[in-house]
Every structure is written in C-alpha cells, then in structure tokens.
C-alpha cells in the first residue's frame, strides 16, 4: 500500500467511527450554536455592527468548538491501546496524522456548513465584498486550526490536564492564523478593504505548519 493508501485507510476509519457515534459533530454543533447565541446577547447585532464583528465571532465560535472535538480525537486511540498498535505498525506515522487531521477538517467543515445559514439569519448578514471568497477563506482557516490542533492534541495526549493544555499551546501559536482569518472574513463582509493579503498569509501559514507537523509527528508519537 502506498502512502496515500495509508492516509485513506486512516481517514475512512475515523469517518466510520464518527458516523457510528456522532459524538464530536453533535457536540461541536450545539456548542458553536450556544457561542453564537451568547455573543448576540453581549453585542447588539444590528446589520452594520454585526458585519464588523461577525468575522471575529464566527471564528471564535469555531475555535472553541473545534477544541472540544480535537480533545476527543486521540482519546479514541487510547482505548484498548490502539495507539500502541499504531506505533508498532510499519505504516508511516505521518499518514496516521494526515488521516486524522483530514477527518477533523471534514467534521469542522460540516459544522460550518450547518452553522453558516444560522449565522446569516441571527446576525442579518449579507456580504458587501466578494462573497465567493469566503469559499476560499473558510477551508484555509479551518485547516490552519485543525492541522495544528490535531498535532498538539497528540502532543498533549499523555500529559496531565490534557483538556486544559491543548488551548494553552494551540492559541498562542495560532494567533497569526486567527488574525488572518478574522481580517479576511471582516474584509469580505464589510467590503472596506482587500482580503488578498490575509488570504496569502493563511496560505503561507498552512504550508509552513503542515510541513512541520508532518515532519515532526514521528518524534511526538514516539516521545519517550
């Protein structure tokens, strides 16, 4: 089996597990819905105001929601010592990581697809810039969160307080990406400035960190 065969096998396994339990997607959906409602209490969402803040709120909701799913992503592998079996298998460790990251990406993307209409209704949104660019920004931003998030969840797997540790190390590293996606989304919604620079930042961020994650995953998996 070649490298992509391994990636696909891992991906299929994770999708199947999620399809049977639907734990993380349901949790994420409800959680991000709650965040959206809570924020609408904190700010008065008139149309002009909500365009300014919606980009930030959307990404904060998705960030918190994906943390809840990422924390669960590797705990599954600990049951019945599956992870130890993975470590012994001759398949490349980075394929395991890539499969897991792609699965998480699909889960968060699904949440976005469900959340987006609700968001538009609750905050009276319609984009004044080029709305189609959101189709570029959303996947780029999601991958930026999910790729590093999956990596750090694996990194913190055997630490004390791993649920606490993941946001503590993921947020500081992700700040440039968060800035990029929030600025790009705000630019598209308000149409006041060009999102091109921020999209390029996101692309550069994704390329740099995906490479490092793939290279260092072996080290993290066999950290003893």
């Amino acid at each position: 089996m070649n490298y992509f065969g391994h990636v696909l096998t891992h991906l299929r396994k994770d999708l199947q597990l999620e399809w049977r339990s639907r734990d993380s997607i349901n949790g994420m959906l409800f959680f991000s819905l709650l965040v959206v409602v809570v924020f609408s209490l904190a700010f008065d969402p008139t149309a002009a105001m909500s365009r300014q803040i919606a980009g930030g709120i959307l990404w904060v909701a998705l960030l918190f929601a994906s943390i809840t799913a990422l924390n669960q992503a590797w705990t599954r592998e600990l049951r019945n010592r599956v992870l130890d079996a993975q470590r012994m298998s001759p398949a490349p460790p980075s394929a395991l990581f890539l499969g897991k990251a792609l699965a998480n990406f699909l889960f968060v993307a699904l949440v976005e697809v469900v959340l987006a209409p609700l968001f538009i209704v609750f905050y009276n949104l319609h984009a004044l810039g080029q709305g189609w660019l959101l189709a570029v920004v959303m996947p780029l931003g999601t991958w930026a969160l999910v790729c590093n998030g999956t990596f750090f969840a694996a990194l913190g797997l055997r630490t004390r307080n791993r649920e606490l540790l993941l946001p503590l190390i993921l947020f500081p590293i992700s700040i440039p990406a968060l800035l990029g996606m929030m600025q790009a989304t705000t630019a598209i919604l308000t149409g006041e400035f060009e999102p091109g620079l921020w999209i390029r930042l996101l692309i550069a961020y994704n390329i740099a960190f995906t490479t490092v994650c793939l290279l260092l995953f072996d080290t993290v998996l066999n950290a003893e």
Partner: protein
Amino acid sequence: MQRSRILGLVGIAWFLLTVGVLAQATRMGLLLAPTDALQGNVFRIIYYHVPHSMLSLLFPYVNLFASLFYLYWRQRDPLKALTADAWAISSAEVTVVYATICLWTGMLWGRVTWGIWWTWDTRLTSMLLLWLLYVSYLMLRKLSATGQTQTLAAVLSIFAGIDVPIVYMSIRWWRTQHPAPIFLSGDPDAKMDPSMLPAFLWNLAAWTMWGIFILIFRYVLERRRQARDQDAALLAIEASLEMAK
C-alpha cells in the same frame, strides 16, 4: 573536583564584575546622561527598556538552537541531549523574565508619554505574543509527563520559532504606533543622540552580562537536577536488582 572549583571561582568573578558594571550603568543612566529635550527625565527608562527588549529577542534563539540540537542528539547521544535540554529550559525562563521586564517598563513609559498603559500596536503586540509563546512553553514543560517533557518541549520550541516571524509580519500589516527602532533603521529622525550613547551602551553591556549570568546559573541548577534524577534512577534500578536476587 579541581575543574569545578575553578569554574565556580570564574562564576563568582563574573557575578562581581556584572554587579560593578550594573552599578556604573545605573549611574550613567540616572545621573550622567543628559535630560531629554522633549520627555524630561522620564525618558531615562529607555536605558532599561531597550536593552531588555533587545535581549528578550536574543534568548529565544538560544532556546531554538538548543531544541534543535536536543532533537538531533536525542537518540544518537542522550547525554549531550540532556545538556542541550538544560540550555533550552534556562533560556526559555530567561526569555520570559526579560520579556516581562520589557513589557512592564514599556507600559510604565507608555502611561506617561502616550497617556495609556497599553495599545495594540505592532511591537507591543508581537512582544506580548512572544511572551505568551514562551509562557505556554513553560506550561507544557510543567504539565507533561516525565520522560516525554524534553522532546515535546523541543517540538513546541520549533513551532514557536516558525511562528515568531509570521506573527511579526502579520501584526505589522495590522497596525503600527510604537516609534521606529533607533538602531539599524533608515529613518534619520529616529536616531539616538550621540550624548546618550555611552549610557546606553553601558546599560546594554550590563544587562547582557546579567542575562548571561542568570542563564548560566539556571543552566547549572538544571544540570544538578538532572544529575540528581539520574542518581535516583540508578538507585531504583539497583534496589530492584537486589530484590530480584
């Protein structure tokens, strides 16, 4: 035994020299340097603020290189790897100390000259993020399980090393209010007056020497802790062998 004694004496001599240079630097900065035309005596905080900010950008490199060496030696030469790890943790802690002082003196200065404690400007924000990154590094070291700590911390340090330039560029596109750097910048208006230079250089030298002192002090402490852990592990192995007999 002889060698460690000489090194100890060198350490004490370096400490005394550092205290002397610090005293002279403080005298230069507070008493001898001329008062600033625009800001009055408030500007004298520059002699603490700028050296600390310059050095807090220097120590992360020690951390990054130590982490790279740690990962390289991890399986090839575990004893060398432990040395590299001791450098990594001591430089991370010194980075946090210097960045804290930089942020704190900067806030004091900003309150007087700008009228606000804090503003989300390029340099302030990127320094705060540097501080956050290294605090999260120390948190990881504190929370991770023994045996894994060094490797995980080295990996995180590499992530931080890649993140810092991206942070700096992205925040620069975002906003700017802090005055331009007074060294190595093309702007002729932003140059430091020559009369301030001696006091500045004395302070830079003093805080560099102090930084090197606490870095090595922390390094020696960490090495002793490692040696104690190794002894404890050896004792445990011997005891278990005794039990097996």
